[in-house]
């Protein structure tokens, strides 16, 4: 059993001078969670509350001939049955890239005339109990005329393929070009080619989609499990109401992972509340969530990479096709991230990247932790391993030769503004594994793998992102933080408290934070794109510094010191201690309550709202050049595996992950992100597959969807680099998404090392690995070029 590195829990990082940042205190949400007292979206009850239910299409591609709801409406206890005609504005137009390059295709709230995937909402029911709502759903009679559909991207792109939408089956194509890739590949000493395929994946947050809605003072109010309260605008549009008449409150989520970035229950709940005038609760059951919630995009990736004989990459050509499913959702952005990150953490002087999102009659794919920048890691890292193999170099040597460095240009023409510690992360990840693995017996092969990545944090630069935060120092020295941030469960709100506490010296238990309310909180944008520590963290830092700068002169005057000589810590303001002051027994100081009272007397306002803006820029989709993402997080994973040559079963023996997080605001939570991301990635690599055949899911049961359990994988050893170079608060980088990215590539690398054959399709199930073993590997051992 491997040893877990424990974080430093009591003191800040030595030498940083921080008191609160760099420690791992248990925050408000943590205590509620272990007591079981946190109220999630479904844990809300109002008098007269109805149960809501979505009636969904049972065929993947059809014309709706008729819908008959008379029997459902007549059932005792049914308050409302709604169809498309009852929706004031039945069009959701999501231009996910901001309209830069994609087709404009509308998604109906409730299907009208056609259904395009199995599970598409057709009608809504509100009833006195869930049981009555379920019975009424069975009484909605829909007559379908089935039409030929397309269920994979290659068929969808073929000449004469049925069109999912009139506008065409290609939602968007992104192209990024730099240099002369044809010339570079022709002149290369070695060219390696690979095709890689990935699967539909389920988010499988343990809290299913849920929410409660009601009308209060004429405002449709929804308290839901969502990453994005800004959907209030879309909901108002659907209802035909002014935005001031819709309020969205985000409960602390029981996980989201991108699956609660698009709207889930919101439009349906809002329609039922608006039509009935009564409170409604809607909970998607797990089987409904499996059937109809958005998924991770299956990708087909074709890579051609050229290198010199010393391993230096000269050019890379990448073609990516992503299965968007039946509606756009966030596919344009996902496939953009895939294109922008397709070359990974390597210098590629000549590149040609083409990345398309393609409509099919499958369930829509959208955001999922990793967001397109994850699938491509399997592609680019497999290519690196192949170059090493072809040239007889070690896998680490080839990577070291090509790692990006600060100041280098990437294929979009941008220069990297912050340090690139990917080489250090690779050395540390491999060091954690120790001695190379040995097979446990006959019929077993052992191998070691490594996978590096570059993952963006923050929204694409052309969105001109911003976040605001509002801090109030109260009369008794306690503090309120108000922020529109939503909390996925990773401690998004808690990190803001630590940053404010660091700057203003308010003890953590004296801070209350109010989040996720579109009416009462200043806007912070959604919790996605690994953006909240970067964006709202910077907003809180800026607000806290500005508030301190405003009140510090009052304290300075009272203490008879220059404002720059003050230290805000532990609930007091005191003089900065110089070494010669250490012997002094008493130094004058003020409590924050005394300072707040003094500010009140002098008319100095102790409440402050601040907006932080990310850098602005633009991207030209015609040239594929311009500004893409603000910055990146780099890291490496390493793993030892054992393969059973009879069954193809892959056992992960040891697993290690190291990322540069810039600065660990809360080391315990950073570790949690690395460990949790790695295990989620192990599911993606080895077991998880939401199999869909001709538009029909192969299983409707959670029991058939293999998310990792406590026995499946070893402990994840973690190490964290703190370069202090991130663009987040106090030099932090985002770490929410990055640690899921490396895993599939790392495990594929280890399997190849063990058996000498490279997996190119996910998940790497025993059946698939056994099929690889039926090739040349059975005849001789693999196990070459151990890295490290």
């Amino acid at each position, binding site marked *: 059993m491997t040893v877990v590195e424990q974080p430093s829990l009591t003191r800040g990082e030595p030498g940083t001078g921080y008191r609160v940042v760099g420690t791992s205190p248990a925050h408000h949400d943590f205590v509620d969670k272990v007591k079981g007292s946190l109220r999630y979206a479904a*844990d809300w009850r109002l008098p007269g509350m109805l149960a809501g239910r979505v009636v969904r299409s049972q065929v993947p591609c059809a014309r709706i001939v008729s819908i008959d709801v008379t029997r459902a409406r007549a059932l005792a206890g049914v308050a409302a049955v709604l169809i498309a005609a009852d929706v004031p504005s039945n069009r959701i137009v999501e231009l996910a890239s901001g309209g830069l390059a994609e087709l404009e295709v509308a998604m109906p709230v409730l299907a009208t005339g056609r259904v395009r995937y199995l599970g598409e909402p057709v009608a809504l029911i509100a009833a006195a109990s869930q049981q009555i709502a379920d019975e009424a759903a069975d009484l909605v009679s829909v007559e379908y005329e089935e039409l030929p559909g397309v269920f994979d991207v290659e068929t969808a792109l073929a000449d004469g393929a049925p069109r999912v939408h009139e506008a065409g089956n290609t939602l968007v194509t992104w192209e990024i070009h730099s240099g002369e890739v044809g010339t570079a590949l022709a002149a290369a000493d070695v060219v390696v080619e690979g095709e890689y395929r990935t699967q539909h994946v389920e988010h499988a*947050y343990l*809290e299913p989609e849920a929410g409660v809605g009601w009308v209060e003072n004429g405002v449709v109010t929804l308290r839901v499990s969502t990453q994005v309260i800004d959907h209030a605008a879309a909901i108002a549009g659907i209802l035909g109401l002014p935005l001031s008449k819709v309020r969205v409150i985000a409960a602390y*989520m029981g996980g989201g992972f991108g699956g609660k970035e698009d709207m889930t229950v919101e439009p349906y709940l809002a329609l039922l509340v608006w039509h009935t005038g009564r409170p409604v609760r809607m909970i998607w059951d*797990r089987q409904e969530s499996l059937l109809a919630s958005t998924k991770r995009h299956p990708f087909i990736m074709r890579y051609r990479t050229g290198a010199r004989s010393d391993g230096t990459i000269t050019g890379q050509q990448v073609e990516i096709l992503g299965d968007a499913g039946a509606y756009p959702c966030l596919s344009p952005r996902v496939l953009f991230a895939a294109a922008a990150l397709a070359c990974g953490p390597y210098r590629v002087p000549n590149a040609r990247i083409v990345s398309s999102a393609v409509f099919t009659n499958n369930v829509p794919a959208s955001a999922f932790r990793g967001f397109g920048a994850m699938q491509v890691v399997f592609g680019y890292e497999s290519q690196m391993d192949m170059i090493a193999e072809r040239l007889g170099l070690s896998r680490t040597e080839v990577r070291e030769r090509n790692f990006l460095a600060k100041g280098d240009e990437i294929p979009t023409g941008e220069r990297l503004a912050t340090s690139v510690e990917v080489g250090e992360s690779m050395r540390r990840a491999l060091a954690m594994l120790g001695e190379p693995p040995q097979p446990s017996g006959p019929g077993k092969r052992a191998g070691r793998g490594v996978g590096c990545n570059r993952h963006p944090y923050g929204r694409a630069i052309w969105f001109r992102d911003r976040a605001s935060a509002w801090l109030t120092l109260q009369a008794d020295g306690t503090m309120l933080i108000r922020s529109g941030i939503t909390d996925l469960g*990773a401690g998004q709100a808690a990190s803001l408290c630590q940053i404010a506490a660091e700057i203003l010296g308010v003890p953590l238990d004296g801070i209350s934070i109010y989040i996720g309310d579109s009416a009462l909180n200043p806007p912070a944008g959604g919790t996605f794109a690994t953006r909240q520590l970067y964006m709202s963290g910077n907003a809180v830092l800026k607000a806290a510094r500005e508030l301190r700068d405003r009140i510090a002169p009052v304290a300075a005057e009272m203490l008879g010191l220059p404002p720059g000589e003050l230290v805000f810590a532990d609930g007091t303001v005191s003089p900065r201690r110089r070494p010669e002051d250490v012997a002094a027994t008493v130094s004058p100081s003020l409590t924050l309550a005394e300072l707040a009272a003094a500010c009140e007397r002098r008319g100095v306002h102790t409440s402050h709202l601040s907006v932080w803006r990310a850098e602005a820029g633009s991207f030209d989709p015609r040239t594929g050049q311009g500004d893409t993402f603000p910055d990146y997080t780099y890291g490496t994973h390493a793993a030892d595996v054992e393969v059973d040559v009879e069954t193809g079963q892959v056992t992960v023996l040891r697993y290690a992950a190291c990322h540069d997080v810039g600065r660990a605001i809360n080391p315990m*939570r950073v570790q949690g992100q690395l460990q949790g991301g790695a295990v989620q990635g192990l599911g993606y690599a080895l077991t998880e597959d939401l199999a869909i055949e001709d538009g029909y899911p192969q299983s409707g*049961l959670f029991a058939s969807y293999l998310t990792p359990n406590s026995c499946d994988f070893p*402990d994840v050893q973690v190490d964290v680099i703190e370069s202090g170079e991130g663009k987040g608060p106090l030099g932090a980088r985002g770490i929410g998404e990055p640690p899921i990215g490396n895993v599939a590539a790392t495990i594929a690398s280890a399997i190849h090392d063990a058996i000498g054959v490279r997996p190119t399709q996910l998940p790497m199930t025993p059946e698939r690995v056994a099929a690889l073993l039926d090739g040349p590997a059975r005849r001789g051992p693999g196990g070459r070029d151990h890295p490290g």
Partner: protein
Amino acid sequence: MTMRNLLLAVNGRDHHVWAAPSASLLDVLHDELGLADVRYGCGEGVCGTCTVLLDGDPVSACLMLAVQAVGHQVVTLQGLMRPGGAMHPIQECFLRLGASQCGFCTPGMVLTALDLVRRCGRPTRDEIRYALVGNLCRCTGYTKILDAVEEYAAVAEPPGGESAAP
């Protein structure tokens, strides 16, 4: 649907509840008794978020009818709290070791782990893994949960000791 009046013993107190014969124990605990620490996660008995102790044994409340709990002692996570709102030592361990992220799986994890430690005293890390196999977590990757249960087992009294009682 004919409702029946059920006498349920939950967290050391008796409750009279009106429930349909088809109502699950989960729905009655969550919606009728307001115990938000017993959570719907899958309805298949796969994820473990609705775990409660029935006469001390962990069971999935989504797979039981409420009527089946009549005559038995039901304990939910809230039933572990000490007088004055103090946490049970196993909750302290989960808190200290960062064994909770989104927190949705935490009540089920804690109850299953508590049962294991009561039965086994000092389980090995692999025994803890085996015992928690029916409680899924999608956030933590399990490492910190295993750390927390190991730590609790180290501080808990041997099986049968007073401190193990809820």
